[in-house]
């Protein structure tokens, strides 16, 4: 018989007392999780904006950019981290490089689609009135692209939160720490806790971003999204 930490027959018995007893640790890990996510999204957004702007300015650069970020997205997270570890070690940097890579495809795609999706009549009238290219982008195109960009950000955020758990394998992990530890010592409570927290965080962030979008775009009734 394989030894099981909980009572045989209750494989998913969840021990609340263990949870109450480790609130400090849990808070720590949640904090780490949010931090890792925040950095990844921040850097991801910055890099994606830069690449998207290049793609918008030089349409011929878009296919290679899409191809490369698509490649990064297809490579399994564990494999990507494995490639990085010999170079950057078991550090936050490794985790962040990996996490950021996964945000690029969806963010770039949505930023480009959002800007390109601006009503051509609006763009034409803006140019006709004397808007220069830079002000056009900042004052007209980006604000109007916001719903689509935020839709992409929501997807990227939720995906990243899930991926942070995998970084437990390289020593980080956020709430993935509990998943890994629970797995290694057959302690179901930790596995459930880690998974549940990851889902809760994802939902919370998703809802917050939805609220942010509504706050930032008082002029639109409905928010449309790409993918």
């Amino acid at each position, binding site marked *: 018989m394989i030894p099981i930490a909980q009572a045989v027959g209750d494989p998913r018995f969840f021990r609340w007392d263990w949870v109450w007893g480790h609130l400090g640790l849990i808070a720590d890990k949640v904090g780490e999780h949010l931090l890792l996510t925040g950095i990844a999204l921040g850097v991801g957004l910055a890099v994606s904006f830069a690449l998207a702007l290049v793609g918008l300015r030089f349409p011929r650069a878009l296919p290679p950019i899409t191809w490369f970020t698509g490649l990064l997205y297809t490579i399994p997270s564990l494999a990507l981290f494995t490639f990085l570890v010999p170079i950057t070690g078991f550090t936050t940097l490794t985790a962040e490089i990996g996490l950021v890579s996964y945000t690029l495809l969806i963010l770039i795609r949505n930023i480009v689609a959002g800007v390109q999706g601006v009503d051509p009549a609006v763009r034409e*009238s803006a140019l006709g009135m004397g808007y220069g290219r830079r002000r056009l982008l900042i004052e007209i195109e980006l604000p*109007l692209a916001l719903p689509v960009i935020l839709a992409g950000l929501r997807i990227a955020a939720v995906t990243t939160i899930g991926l942070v758990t995998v970084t437990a394998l390289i020593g980080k992990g956020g709430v993935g720490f509990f998943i890994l530890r629970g797995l290694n010592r057959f302690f179901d409570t930790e596995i459930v806790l880690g998974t549940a927290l990851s889902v809760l965080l994802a939902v919370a962030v998703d809802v917050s971003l939805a609220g942010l979008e509504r706050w930032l775009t008082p002029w639109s009734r409905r928010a449309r999204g790409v993918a």
Partner: protein
Amino acid sequence: MASPMIRLEGVTKVYAGSATPAVSGLSLDVGEGEIAVLVGPSGCGKTTTLKMINRLVEPTSGRIMVAGDDVMTVPAHELRRRIGYVIQQIGLFPHRTVADNIATVPRLLGWDRPRIERRVDELVALVDLDPALRNRYPLELSGGQRQRAGVARALAADPPVLLMDEPFGAVDPIVRSRLQDELLGLQRRLRKTIVLVTHDVDEAIKVGDRVAILNVGGVLEQYAPPAEILRQPAGRFVEDFLGSDRGIKRLSLMPIRDVALEPGPVVPRSATRDEARAVMARYGVDWFGILDGEVLAGWAWGKELDDVPIATLTPREFMVRLGHDDSLREALDTVITSHTRVAPVFDGKRFLGMLTVEAISRELAR
């Protein structure tokens, strides 16, 4: 023309990858305070030409001068801030209020807030837009309201030149007619130099001081005041483009005030039955009009005279009453659709006279 506001000299535009030019060797002038309408079939380059004036499209060869400056020598965005631009779909910025939309060019030019606010209020009144809409978003406006906001936005920085690309194309005919009248009204007050593109030849005739008929490839067939084009079309293409009802179109340009009216078969209430019959005979009609002083009460059939004296007759209403500002086209329409076969003309309630078919066609022949 001495120093026109807009001058095109041999302007040609060939798009990359296309064998035929969109516009070839176009030359025309637009004087200050004039409305020039560019009209023609699909592919005649009218929109391309318009967009070359504010450099949204750059000419392949030739020169375009606006207020004495070659458009290629001024930075594009500066040029455009001095030219008003209205397009068919208007393109109001959805994320800005109507007031902010109107304030676009003043903001780009760096006006201070108070000045901008005053100007916005002025314009809202000028284009007859409901002031309550000032702080709403374009989403909440109707089509006609958006049109007005678009025009207000184009006029905000008081540019001397206004470019309009099918500005009334997206609204229904009733609204369109009203907007055309309002444009003419605005123009009487503001005296801008306007270049308007339309595919509707009736709109061109109604609105234009001079109309440029363009053929495919930007070839200028004729550029003249609408009355002249209608009277003397330059060639087969123009004739066909104007349509077979050229005569009637010309009538729409002639106001009734310019035409001599006839008294018509009209008698006062106090007249005798014989006088009525005489006047009917003179005009060759079987009806007569009844005057109460200077007011034309209506008309009656000749055969009603057999039964009763004039004073007791109840006159029938004239269905349409025309005024000095109506055109001969409306008069003709009234004439051919009424029982009486005339168009009565009034100044308020005062009866002025009548128009017959003969009188109207005589005007055309002049």
